[in-house]
């Protein structure tokens, strides 16, 4: 469908654009943009009343339950939640049942997404077979089948030799290796940040060193192999510092943080609130502030939702037994905007973290409003206040760590390839 969106605040960090103007969509692509954009005669026009048009968000870490645990989330329901959050591209994690460690399974995800999902879906494939951390997957064939990166998802590759070989081999394909930086031996039985609070609650702690020791090890291996390495989520001030130093040394390193870690800290697990049980764990307020600073100065490349749907039974458990994770793909934009509204981080940097930057890391292109690009974008009121209500979120599971939180910034409509996939 051809349509013009007039009187919109057009924000496109990749092109340094932030101005009032018109976006013209023809045949699913952006054909003109800006204050001087020409609208072809007789084209249908939509007055945006000054609301913002942003590139569709790219969420680099989304767990679903398809295949295997469809009761938690399917590609279809995840995509509906994504669309409602202005996310036009979701990157799925391979930790399903079976694990996505074979080209046929990558193909399965792509076909299921094509048939059932309303936003674009690109799978990451497993880095090791069965995500078991032992032998590497067919990185070449998986890349060919459409895997955009390689990771064991919510499991760290513990064996240093396996990691070295995977990084080494991946170099041939310029594949991106994504690590869940958590030393399982140091984590041991830990379930929350190691602190006086964990001691008071009688819960085993996860030391910051479980994260930094793994990152330090991997950085040595990156130096050795030259492979592209990405840390899915960092959670501590020390990790921000480590990544900052590694980037300064010119290593091909990038990292992400979850929007939840930018909004909450360990105090949110008070009273054994399992909905705030995350991996990596929520840490101290100082860590949260360091993460925000890391986003602001570009040390942290991307902000992800870490969307991880868990049903009531998995969460209504004693804290140590409860499942990790929070849903979040629908609230990703509100999450990053909290840094704009409350912490003074520039809007273009924040939007870059959820659009062009992840798209570039994954080699997807897109994440911009450039002329000729697919018309994937969100229409949003950046200031609209609302209260997160887990029950009304579109995910199949309602485990929202930021339930009942007041946020600002609401998606009014979402377009994929010029087609409206969500309208409020």
């Amino acid at each position, binding site marked *: 469908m051809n349509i013009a969106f007039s009187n919109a605040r057009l924000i496109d960090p990749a092109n340094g654009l932030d101005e009032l103007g018109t976006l013209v969509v023809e045949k699913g692509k952006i054909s003109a943009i800006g204050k001087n954009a020409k609208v072809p005669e007789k084209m249908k026009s939509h007055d945006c009343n000054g609301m913002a048009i942003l590139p569709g968000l790219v969420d680099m870490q989304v767990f679903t339950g398809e295949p295997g645990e469809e009761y938690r989330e399917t590609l279809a329901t995840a995509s509906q939640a994504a669309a409602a959050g202005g996310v036009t591209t979701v990157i799925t994690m391979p930790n399903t049942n079976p694990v996505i460690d074979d080209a046929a399974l990558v193909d399965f995800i792509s076909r299921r997404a094509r048939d059932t999902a309303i936003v674009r879906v690109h799978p990451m494939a497993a880095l090791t077979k069965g995500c078991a951390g032992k032998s590497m997957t067919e990185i070449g064939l998986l890349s060919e089948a459409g895997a955009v990166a390689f990771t064991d998802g919510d499991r760290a590759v513990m064996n240093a030799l396996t990691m070295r070989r995977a990084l080494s081999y991946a170099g041939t394909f310029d594949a991106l290796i994504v690590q869940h930086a958590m030393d399982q031996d140091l984590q041991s039985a830990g379930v929350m940040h190691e602190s*006086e609070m964990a001691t*008071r609650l*009688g*819960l085993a702690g996860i030391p910051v060193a479980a994260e930094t020791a793994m990152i330090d090890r991997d950085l040595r291996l990156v130096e050795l192999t030259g492979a592209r390495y990405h840390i899915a989520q960092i959670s501590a001030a020390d990790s921000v510092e480590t990544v900052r130093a590694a980037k300064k040394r010119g290593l091909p390193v990038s990292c992400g943080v979850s929007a939840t870690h930018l909004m909450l800290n360990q105090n949110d697990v008070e009273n*054994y609130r399992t909905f705030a049980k995350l991996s990596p764990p929520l840490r101290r307020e100082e860590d949260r502030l360091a993460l925000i600073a890391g986003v602001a100065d570009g040390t942290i490349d991307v902000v992800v939702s870490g969307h991880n749907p868990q049903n009531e039974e998995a969460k209504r*458990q004693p*804290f*140590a037994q409860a499942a990790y994770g929070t849903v979040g793909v629908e609230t990703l934009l509100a999450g990053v905007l909290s840094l704009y509204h409350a912490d003074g981080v520039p809007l273009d940097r924040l939007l870059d973290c959820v659009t062009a930057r992840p798209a570039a890391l994954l080699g997807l292109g897109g994440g911009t409003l450039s002329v000729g690009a697919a018309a994937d974008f969100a229409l949003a009121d950046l200031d609209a206040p609302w209260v997160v209500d887990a029950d009304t979120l579109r995910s199949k599971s309602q485990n929202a760590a930021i339930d009942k939180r007041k946020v600002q910034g609401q998606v009014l409509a979402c377009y994929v390839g010029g087609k409206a996939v969500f309208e409020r």
Partner: protein
Amino acid sequence: MTATEIKGAFAHRDLLGIDGLSVSEITYLLDLSDSYVEQNRQIDKKTSVLRGRTQINLFFESSTRTQSSFELAGKRLGADVMNMAVKTSAVNKGETLLDTAVTLNAMNPDLLVVRHGDSGAVELLAQKTSCAVLNAGDGAHEHPTQALLDALTIRRRLGKLQGLRVAICGDITHSRVARSNLLLLNAMGAQVHLIGPQTLLPVGAEQLGAHVFTDMKAGLEGCDIVMMLRIQNERMEGALIPSVREYYRLYGLDREKLGYAKPDALVMHPGPMNRGVEIDSAVADDPERSLIRDQVEMGVAVRMAVLEALAANLPNGTGGAQ
């Protein structure tokens, strides 16, 4: 004391921990316990305070002494007491927990005494039931009646808690007894020393108000009370401490180490003891110095007091027949 007076003095639906109790509430429970100590030494130990009430002891972790102590306490107050031991498989522990809660709730118990291996599990269960819930130990979190009975034992022997120096020695990290005692003793104005090898000391104990030591000699200095904790078998053999004999050499309480404390310092242990591991028999059985048998006696009295206080606050009742 009438039920109305109790309601004013102790205004909680459940007893999930020492955390959240005021000094006056702790004092009130200790005073009420005192009266039960005397009653328990009479020939007729029974009252009808809980007549008609149903008390269920729900133990997900087996414990002979705590469970019998609660059983005896409930029976002496006239309640109908039922013991439920729940064997849980690791896979569906939590499912069993909430399912059990719903099932039990339908039986309309008035008092539910719960022990569970996971921190916070008793609180979770309390949210799902409408009766009064009493924490008989949850994971490494709290064991409030143990702290109350320890305090009662000390107060009866030394007449006060304020100003005393109490050492708690051993596996602090995994101990709910240590946590509840730390909270209670701090609240009552005693000074707490935590002593153990670094691998058994939790992070941030200083911020919770304790003085922390890895050396028995330094830690025991000036202590009025030396409280030893049981060391679990699975913590030994190289995981957290190298061996039993090294542990006993460094931290096992014998006459020599007891000598580092005040000359008349008293010895306590929540039981069951590992003789020759954390404590020497000569110390444990010394009638002059050991309060270990007193602790067991005080346990029943404290649990009677807590049961009475909670029953008085039940929404549908007056705390039983008066």
